[in-house]
């Protein structure tokens, strides 16, 4: 039985500490999976976060041990993992483009109109950190949707919110994140 399955079962039993244990496991799994896939995939193929997460889920949890409640935990943790992975990726790419000398993207130097998609991810992440302090629920919706690739229905199930609330939080979050970013540039 895999470690992940054990953790998920622990979560299922209501052991709160187990949730914290999940993230590094999921993170490693996703990394491993992404790397392993490369051997077979053509260049130019795109990697959908959702697909990756689904795949990780399918590989790590055998069919007999599925528990849909734990699936929600898994996807939440996977979204966080994806966030880290994607932010790392964006930083690396951004750095490559801007020359090796610069250790980290200096957000203050960016002109908003000229940002690359990767820059946008970094800017969004930065703003998201602010939003997490101000409105954790709204920020969580962003993490699940934006980084985890979950749809509204899945987010609603995952967070125990109504679909309508998810729609509202997402709409408002987009406006707020953009406003913060814009205010700085």
């Amino acid at each position, binding site marked *: 039985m895999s470690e992940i399955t054990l953790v998920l079962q622990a979560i299922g039993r209501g052991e709160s500490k187990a949730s914290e244990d999940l993230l590094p496991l999921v993170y490693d799994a996703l990394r491993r999976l992404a790397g392993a896939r490369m051997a*077979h995939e053509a260049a130019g193929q795109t990697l959908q976060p*959702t697909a990756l997460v689904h795949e990780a889920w399918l590989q790590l949890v055998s069919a007999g041990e599925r528990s849909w409640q734990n699936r929600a935990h898994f996807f939440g943790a996977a979204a966080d993992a994806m966030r880290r992975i994607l932010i790392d990726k964006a930083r690396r790419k951004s750095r490559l483009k801007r020359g090796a000398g610069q250790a980290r993207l200096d957000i203050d130097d960016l002109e908003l109109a000229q940002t690359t998609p990767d820059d*946008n991810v970094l800017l969004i992440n930065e703003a998201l950190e602010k939003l997490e302090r101000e409105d954790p629920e709204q920020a969580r919706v962003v993490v699940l*949707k934006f980084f985890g*690739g979950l749809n509204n229905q899945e987010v609603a199930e995952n967070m125990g919110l109504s679909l309508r609330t998810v729609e509202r939080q997402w709409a408002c979050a987009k406006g707020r994140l*953009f406003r913060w970013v814009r205010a700085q540039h």
Partner: protein
Amino acid sequence: MSASKQVEDAVFFTALNLTDLGQRKLFLDQACAGNPGLRAAVEDLLAAQGDAEHFIAKGRAALHLPTEAFASGMATGADEPTRLDEEIGTRVGRYKLLQRIGEGGCGVVYMAEQEEPVHRRVALKVIKLGMDTKSVIARFDAERQALALMDHPNIARVLDAGATEAGRPYFVMELVRGVRITEYCDQNHLDTRQRLELFIQACHAIQHAHHKGVVHRDIKPSNILVTMHDGVPVPKVIDFGIAKAIEGKLTEHTLFTAYEQLVGTPAYMSPEQAEMSGLDVDTRSDIYSLGVLLYELLTGRTPFDGKELMKSGLDQMRRTLREKEPQRPSNILTTLHGTELKATAEHRHAEAPKLISLLKGDLDWIVMKALEKDRARRYETANGLAMDVERYLLNEPVVARPPSRLYRFQKLVRRNKLVFASGAAVSLALVIGLGVSTVLFLKEKEAWREQARLREEAQRSQQRENELRLQAEAKEKINQAAIYVSQERFDEADQLLETIKTLPPKPSFDGVNAYRSVGEWLALQGRWREAANRFLPLMQIDRLDEWRVVTLDYQACGAVLAECGDRERYAQFCQTAVINYGATTNGDMAGRILKTCLLMPPGKDLMAQLRLMAEVADQYFAPIPEKDFPEWAVIHLSLWDYRQSNYGQAEAWGQRLAGRGKGTALEATARVIMAMSCYKSGQAEEARGELAQGRALIEGKFKAGLDHGNGADGFWFDWIFARLLLREADGLLGA
């Protein structure tokens, strides 16, 4: 979280959902009343909304970038599959390909044989594109459990999925030998009822899948096949779970060409599917596609032409699906060419006009409800749609309704209710107290008030239109009457004028003259009542005539009314005269009106009202030197004094006037007034003398025959005045 943020979010989201900008403004006015900071913040969010969407979308695009990010340098050369067909007879997984049975938008379908664990024939669909096979299968696997739960006679079961040796994904399904539903209906000339019955079965199948948590996402005729089962046609829905499994490709990166290859036609795609904005497609998307299917079953075409949508490009296609209202089914039939319409009708075992009238109404609304752009306004379930169709077949009232203006308002209110009923509204209400419910109440009230106002407006404009039409007709008639008058065909002119109920506000001079001339013609024949009917309209209209003409008309009108003995109408006439001319500063004019209002003994009120005019007239005539004094114009002075019981004064004026116009209406009138004044002041003898002289003049005139007359000897109405006062005097002296 701060309360102000919560309010801001709630107001923003509510405003965002009010797509009607007027409504949005109204809402913001109310929600942000007294809080300009909130207003500014929300306006800012709304204004930046487009940019924000773009910004986030751009960020999301980064998440779909090439996978080299995960393992740079590991990419190998492309190995795009070049051949699409699998060889017949070869094995794919544990299936042996027997025969190629079809090719759809996204794949090639084979009949195949499964040997283990059971020996059976199946359909095997190989997806065309060189796709991300693993993730397709992964997605399929994620859905597999739900798919396995589906068990319905109208659903073809999806059994398995895997990858071919060339790396393409394939799906294995229950083998269905049938033709697409639209084809089956046309080939067998099914009438509308039979088509609807098949459609209902398809709805039930979709409902079953939805109930098990499976959304089809690609409902179209080629995915609903009709097979014969004991001679009864049975629709079978195929390809469940497949669209979802390959959807990653649809939603990410969305190159239009890829889309075309995958889906074939966007004609069945719901607006939210076309948006491809995210993965958020739910059961209501299937309802939309069922609506398109119903549309096609009924009319032979889809609401939007698939090829045209494709040609128009992705953005235009999205816009069309999002914004353009499709024609109603009955409407689109009327736009078909003759032969096309005939063929469509024949396929449905009906004649064209009958088919159109069959669709008009309930079926139109059922289809349009399923095709609502806003999925919240579609049928909530496939069952709901099926039930409405059943209601139609049973001749019961359907739930779908035509979008009347009232209905649209109801929808507006309902829509807003939805906005407010969200969790946001609840917390907002907690924070700002009565705010939301008040706003909701006001909005609803506002909508109804607006509705009432529009109804009133419509009525008013209808009345107005009616009025204008009548006025135009009247103008025409009056002009014709004027022509009759010029030809002295008064009788015909009179009959024509009699039919006019609504007067034009500004008739021509000739038109006014027609009324006047006919009135006079009637008066000279002693037809007083009819004459009054011709003169009275002249009092109502806005006249361009000079005051001398106008006051002549007043005198004529007053004369005939008094002559009729119709006290009530005469009193009304006096009121009109006072209202129109009571404030005049023209002494001559005041005198004429005054005289006309004193023909019958006036009440106290009228006397009080006339006093001002009497003073104006007095001031006008008093300073005129004796040699220039227009005695013929001042009979009112004598009459006014008499009515005021200044008998001495009245008599003095009478003497002066009677001496001036020998043998005229003026003398006759003056003598009659003198007679009454003398009598009142106790000079009965003198009174009788004056009366006899006056009577002689008046009776002589009427015996000779009344004519139009002139200003010097007296117009016809001057003689009427005289005779009216003579009668009054007879009554007085005889008593």
